[in-house]
């Protein structure tokens, strides 16, 4: 036991016995702050003891700020970057990120039934690099705030969604399924011709400016857009390729997508199995 710990022990024993029960939560944060300060040995012991309280209050404040920041980003449907949390919210305390992040998660789950989910990074387009990653999931240091309450609680009589949200979600699912059954990617020309066939004009009352809407999906992490190099594209014009973004991968399970697409056909039994097999094949997923 270090001399400081012993002294705290003595101080505590002089107090009411009941204090024992209130200690664990605060000593937890003190331990953390002690660990943080060990990197900075210039503090003398008295200083560190005086600042321990301050530090745990500070951490608490930063946790609450991070919760607020996560809610605000979600409200804008924006992905949440670890760098932005460190730079905009934690500032001088960015080294405490792991401790603050864990407490933020606990608070988000407790208060709102939500949690930050780290998105899977862009898969390497280069097959060699993909092989090098060896099937391991590459995390992206970006997060989305996800609802973790059971699905049936997301009832429209309880949770309000605007008409705009419904409309753009509908269109997003159409685009995601088009890409899905096209072996997971689609160039912009083909996507545009599909949208034209669905009579979604370049500019409409309902969806606004089509290009801007697609930009929005890309920004929110639902779609990923990649410029193909001239060789692959076999064209002088720049060709862009769309695929599912990290957020779609996190929020839309493959089997839900297959279920959605097959539900259009009203088939059952073995016919449904055959249909789903062919959807997986179109998505170039081995079953």
């Amino acid at each position, binding site marked *: 036991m270090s001399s400081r710990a012993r002294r705290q022990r003595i101080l505590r024993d002089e107090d009411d016995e009941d204090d024992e029960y209130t200690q664990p939560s605060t000593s937890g944060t003190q331990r953390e702050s002690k660990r943080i300060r060990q990197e900075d040995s210039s503090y003398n012991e008295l200083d560190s003891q005086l600042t321990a309280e301050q530090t745990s209050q500070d951490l608490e404040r930063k946790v609450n700020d991070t919760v607020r920041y996560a809610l605000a980003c979600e409200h804008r449907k924006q992905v949440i970057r670890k760098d932005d949390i460190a730079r905009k919210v934690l500032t001088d305390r960015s080294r405490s990120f792991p401790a603050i992040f864990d407490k933020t998660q606990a608070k988000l789950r*407790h208060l*709102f*039934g939500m949690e930050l989910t780290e998105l899977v990074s862009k898969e390497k387009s280069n097959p060699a690099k993909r092989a090098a990653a060896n099937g391991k999931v590459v995390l992206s240091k970006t997060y989305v705030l996800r609802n973790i309450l059971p699905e049936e609680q997301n009832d429209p009589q309880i949770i*309000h969604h605007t008409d*705009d949200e419904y409309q753009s979600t509908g269109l997003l699912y159409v685009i995601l399924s088009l890409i899905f059954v096209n072996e997971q990617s689609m160039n912009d020309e083909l996507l545009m011709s599909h949208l034209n066939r669905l009579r979604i004009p370049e500019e409409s009352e309902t969806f606004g400016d089509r290009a801007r809407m697609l930009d929005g999906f890309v920004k929110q992490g639902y779609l990923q857009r990649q410029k193909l190099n001239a060789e692959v594209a076999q064209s002088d014009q720049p060709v862009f390729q769309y695929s599912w973004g990290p957020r779609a991968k996190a929020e839309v399970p493959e089997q839900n997508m297959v279920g959605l697409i097959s539900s259009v056909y009203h088939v059952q039994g073995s016919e449904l199995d055959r249909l789903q097999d062919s959807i997986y094949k179109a998505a170039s997923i081995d079953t």
Partner: protein
Amino acid sequence: MATTETMNGQEQHPHEMTEYNGTHRLFMQSMLSHRILEESQAEVIYEKICDMLNADKADFGDFVAVINKEISDVDLALRRTVDEYNSSAIIALVNTRGDEVAQLATTYTANEIGFFKRVLELIVTADDEAFSLGSMAAIREGPKLKPAFSQRETEELLNKLVADKWLMRRRDGYYVLHMRSIIELQNYLKETFENEIHECLMCMEIVTVGERCSQGRCEVRLHTHCAAGYFPEQDNGSEIKCPTCGTTWARDNTIGTIRQ
């Protein structure tokens, strides 16, 4: 998916109604999506949640109090008040930290906030305490800004401000403050428009729709619903007077109402 009871690793004890549990959590998700609701609607939602989660229904006020105790850490609160426009009880999720207008920055650009501030100013400083702004006048403000908004952009922005419940379009087409603005931006409004913003003598909340004292220098203003509660029924013939200066009170001397 874990059930809400086990999410905290806690059992829900029937006698501890004050414990923050799955009903509070889902109600918070609901309030995050609505921001502001008539209290009667909020209670229907609460009932629905209790049914869904098989929870006992508590007194709504107690239920809200449990939530407020828990969310104050993150500078949020549920506030219950009365809608100035229709006198119904409402509940709103509000930010309790200062610089309220800056918080709009999560969904609006700096230029859009600039426009909104200008509209707020025009509404609050409207002649004769009308607390409203004609739609043409509102649309004309966009192109005057630097950088300017086109007329179409201005209309879109006004629609967005209405959809987000910062402004309300009255049935005569005038823009007025939505209750959300009155509740969430109250400090900003009081500080910025010290001379124009009055608090109701009865409930001490901001009043932009109600009645005023006929004595020009008297600051007494009452909400429509507060005045209705304060003044006795009119048919007993006795003259009613301003509670502060004693001037005869004319019930038709209104502010913030549709002018004929």
